[in-house]
């Protein structure tokens, strides 16, 4: 009896180890395809329902903080109005200069809307699967954004009807970024937890908390000017020529179920 029990334990463990080994030497992406095809209808429905429920809960939480937030927003609105007036002047000036030099209008993205089928179920790795694939023109390396030009991630695998996206919060996703003031540049990577880390910032570069961090466009994946987050804390070390900063991500309140793939862009 004891021997039979032991067999029931040992065989599945051995099979799992074999699977791990076999996956290193053979291409098992067809399994991903089958599982996604079977589970996607259920997960997509569950995700949309969760997204709706989360929005309703968010409304209740927002109601609680409404009066304080309202005062803050009024103040910010005043400031933005004056910024807007200045910006309009600059825009006109810029337009006139562009016409003189003969340079094209500002950047343009060609976007393809997609729905998230499911997120990576493991906390350690940050991926999502979306319902658009190679037959929709999606290719590996294409950047994916959320509403408001917020970076979501990049396509790492494009199958026929779906694609796997490596989220910006994944530690393997290296993004070239800068502060909006253009004073500091660096390389961004995700970490476990809701934090992004901006690395390789020159030691004497000026960077302060609450500064907006955007993409530089130098990594060849993400176009220039996409929103990444805000500086949370600057970590300066005594040694070396670089410093780091932790970044409060723009997706802080979570990712959404609707995203946009940038299939092409002009800068």
């Amino acid at each position: 009896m004891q021997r039979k029990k032991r067999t029931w334990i040992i065989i599945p463990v051995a099979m799992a180890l074999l699977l791990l080994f076999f996956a290193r030497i053979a291409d098992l992406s067809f399994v991903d395809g089958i599982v996604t095809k079977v589970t996607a209808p259920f997960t997509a429905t569950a995700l949309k329902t969760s997204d709706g429920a989360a929005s309703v809960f968010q409304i209740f939480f927002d109601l609680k903080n409404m009066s304080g937030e309202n005062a803050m927003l009024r103040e910010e609105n005043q400031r933005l109005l004056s910024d807007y007036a200045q910006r309009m002047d600059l825009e006109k000036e810029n337009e006139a200069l562009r016409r003189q030099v003969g340079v094209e209008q500002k950047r343009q993205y060609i976007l393809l809307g997609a729905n998230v089928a499911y997120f990576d179920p493991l906390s350690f790795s940050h991926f999502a699967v979306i319902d658009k694939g190679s037959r929709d023109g999606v290719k590996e390396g294409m950047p994916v954004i959320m509403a408001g030009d917020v970076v979501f991630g990049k396509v790492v695998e494009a199958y026929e009807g779906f694609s796997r996206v490596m989220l910006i919060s994944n530690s393997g996703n290296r993004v070239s970024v800068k502060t909006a003031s253009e004073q500091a540049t660096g390389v961004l990577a995700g970490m476990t937890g809701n934090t992004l880390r901006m690395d390789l910032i020159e030691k004497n570069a000026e960077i302060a908390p609450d500064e907006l961090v955007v993409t530089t466009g130098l990594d060849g994946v993400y176009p220039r000017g996409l929103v990444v987050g805000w500086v949370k804390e600057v970590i300066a070390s005594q040694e070396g020529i670089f410093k780091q900063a932790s970044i409060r991500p723009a997706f802080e309140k979570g990712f959404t179920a609707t995203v946009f793939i940038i299939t092409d862009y002009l800068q």
Partner: protein
Amino acid sequence: MTAFVLFLGAIVAQATAFQYLKEYGIAFDSVLAIAIVLGFMRGNYQQLMIPAFFAGIILDSMSGAPFGTITTALMAALAALSVLSTTFAREHVIHFAVFAVVGSVLFSAIVFFITMLLDPYARMPIIGVLSIIGYNSAGTILIYLFSRWIILSKNRISGR
């Protein structure tokens, strides 16, 4: 069959609804929790090995982690709990807490080890791993208490 259906429900919840309940970027591993609770309440972890194996494969194909990581971690955690159940046979909350912590630690440690070994870009601070273990253990204990409460209420209603 019941275990497999519960695992499928947990997989869908883990990849969708629980993503909205993330704290510090950590989502609850509901499949692991269901496996620990079900095995403890039935007093038999061996019977769960096959459905958990297939649940692990589904999770692996849904995850971007190296294929086989979750299946291996799940199998190893259940095997250890099966051995442990010979020592802690009684159904008691404290015993269960030990099971929840051991299961979560083993699962997370194996996932962490395999990911660090096979993924050159992986960066996981120890504090993050500890948070995952704490979150999973606490959630698993809550599910167990909830399940016990349901069973006790059912028994009370039926007069047993």
